[in-house]
């Protein structure tokens, strides 16, 4: 299976590569539209700040390319947030794949949320074989409110969307590549999705 990781200079992707290696898959890291279009699966990673990440996406000419991808695409953490319509972080217009907004956590909470929290209301083959209230590793200051695209929710202050799905696009706020065996199962399920 050909897996491409979108390369737009958005931080550390080595652990993502290793997580796929442990599943027997060797991803290609690329910003080349043709290599992305030809892959069986595309991963849209992201750490850091939304505004500058979106600017990097534009520099790499990927703003139009990503929404047109036809195979299963998985956005992780900031990758998922950039697939939304808008983010409060840096007043950033996103790719608009998911019609929802990204907001800052309530200032009364410890921010960033760092650590392991549960995912519930699991509603996708992405979570096949994964029990309700499984723990995933999260590190983020901005969140997507619960909405019709939600396929998992997590509670931190309010209950928010910790995974999204629309058509061939999936997003997880948590880091499956850092969430132990259960996280690895999410990546495996993503590889096994029926196109």
């Amino acid at each position, binding site marked *: 299976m050909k897996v491409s990781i979108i390369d737009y200079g958005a931080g550390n992707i080595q652990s993502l590569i290793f997580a796929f290696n442990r599943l027997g898959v060797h991803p290609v890291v690329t910003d080349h539209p043709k290599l992305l279009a030809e892959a069986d699966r595309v991963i849209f990673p992201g750490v850091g700040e939304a505004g500058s990440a979106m600017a990097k996406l534009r520099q790499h000419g990927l703003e139009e390319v990503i929404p047109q991808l036809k195979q299963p695409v998985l956005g992780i953490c900031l990758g998922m947030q950039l697939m939304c319509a808008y983010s409060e972080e840096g007043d950033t217009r996103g790719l608009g794949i998911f019609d929802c907004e990204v907001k800052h956590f309530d200032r009364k909470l*410890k921010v*960033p949320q*760092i*650590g392991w929290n549960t995912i519930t209301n699991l509603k996708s083959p992405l979570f096949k074989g994964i029990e309700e209230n499984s723990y995933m590793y999260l*590190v983020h200051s901005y969140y997507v409110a619960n909405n019709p695209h939600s396929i998992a929710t997590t509670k931190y202050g309010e209950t928010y969307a910790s995974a999204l799905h629309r058509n061939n696009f999936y997003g997880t706020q948590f880091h499956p590549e850092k969430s*132990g065996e259960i996280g690895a199962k999410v990546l495996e399920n993503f590889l096994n999705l029926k196109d």
Partner: protein
Amino acid sequence: MLTKRIIPCLDIKDGRTVKGINFKDLADAGDPVELAERYAREGADELVFLDISATEEKRRTLAELVYHVAEKVNIPFTVGGGISSVEDVGMLLRAGADKISVNSAAVKRPELINELASRFGSQCVVVAIDAKNVDGKWLVHLVGGKVATEVDLFEWALEVQERGAGEILFTSMDHDGTKNGFANEALSKLSDMLHIPVIASGGAGTKEHFKDTFKEGKADAALAASVFHYGEIPIPELKTYLKNEQIPIRI
């Protein structure tokens, strides 16, 4: 619910763990990758690797170690010890570290925190603070607690938060190594005044100490070394105990 984190800390020198370890079935007790894998399997929530090598050449050994840890370990880990530049951090993150921690270099040049946060994001910048209570005042110490400064712990903690730290790792030099419990009074004050997570370090000796630092110290995470390395407190047993004490914990 967000759970409290249990974090074993591994001291690294020239790519090997330094402290003795009594895990009998490890093929090589000094191999940090094997120990890290084992802690991850046992339920550690994160790991910290603290490098105590001194020279540039040995730092490259550290980046190689980070690469091998990332290859095998599927939970987050932080790397610290002697980090003083954006270049150091870039190298370690590219090798696969999730977070880095800075300590003395940030006290000497606080702008380093801003540079790291804006370049790599606050989420991967942990600022470690070693402090000691001197005549009723908590003073920041450098070089592993050897060198005293006039910097006040609480003022410094606020400043590093302001400069973009994502997390604070507070070690009480008065408690470190005593096994008499964490510095819960100072921790609780830190936790109340900051809006970023606080990791408690120094003083773990019993399971009750962990409970106390989460309840009284209001810590978001607790770090320890010897009680884990010497098998005095097995992680699964500790986590079951804490869960029974009504502390949110991942099992």
